[in-house]
């Protein structure tokens, strides 16, 4: 079996960055429908009723996720200006805050006052669970990117994987921007 490099053709001139970025946005559109449907299901089944939740914990993990977005932004801005040191710390902080957020959600689950076989419990566990699974996959992607980064890849000229991972991270944050009030604050 012959092993060959992919052939270069005239379309090598295509701006792949543009394609990748637009593709990632389309993926986000699709995900928006997923999360939008979960939100709709939440209001369809329960109206604005909600179970008993630890408000301070909710606020805490929300702020952690927001902070992680700031550190992710820092990492991207830093690599755009070839500041590798800051980018490194930005990535590490983002991953750490992501893990902390996941831990917060897990703790929230363990102390929940409702069970998953009642309507609010079903919605709460499903929505936070699917969101957390996105956080975890985001952490996974960031770790892969970080390893590449440590090997000396990425520069201001070429850092799409890092930028894409950070965009994904921000998207997960946007989802939580809607989920947090819908689960904790509406009533």
């Amino acid at each position: 079996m012959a092993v060959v490099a992919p052939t270069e053709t005239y379309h090598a001139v295509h701006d792949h960055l543009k394609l990748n970025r637009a593709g990632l946005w389309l993926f986000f559109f699709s995900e928006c429908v997923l999360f939008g449907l979960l939100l709709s299901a939440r209001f369809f089944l329960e109206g604005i009723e909600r179970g008993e939740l630890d408000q301070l914990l909710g606020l805490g993990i929300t702020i952690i996720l927001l902070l992680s977005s700031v550190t992710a932004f820092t990492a991207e801005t830093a690599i755009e200006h070839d500041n590798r040191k800051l980018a490194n710390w930005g990535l590490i902080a983002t991953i750490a805050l992501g893990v902390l957020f996941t831990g917060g959600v897990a703790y929230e689950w363990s102390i929940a006052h409702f069970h998953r076989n009642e309507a609010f419990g079903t919605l709460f566990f499903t929505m936070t669970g699917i969101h957390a699974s996105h956080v975890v996959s985001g952490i996974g992607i960031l770790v892969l990117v970080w390893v590449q980064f440590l090997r000396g890849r990425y520069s201001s000229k070429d850092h799409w994987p890092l930028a894409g991972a950070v965009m994904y991270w921000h998207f997960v944050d946007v989802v939580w921007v809607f989920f947090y009030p819908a689960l904790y604050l509406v009533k």
Partner: protein
Amino acid sequence: MQKAMQTGLIVAIILAILTIVEYVFAVNFDHDTIRFIGLSFAAFGKAALIVYYFMHVYRLWRVEEAH
């Protein structure tokens, strides 16, 4: 670098303030419909800030050099 970071941090501070305001408003306010509308506005505002300043949505239609 510094300018970009500055913009980002200002946005982050606005987001943090909005989150706190959201929380205080929701915990202390007792009219269901108005609270729902207020929270929705805050959420859409925050989402718009993140999408524009953190996710750089404008790069989709702005021609720029590859990186």
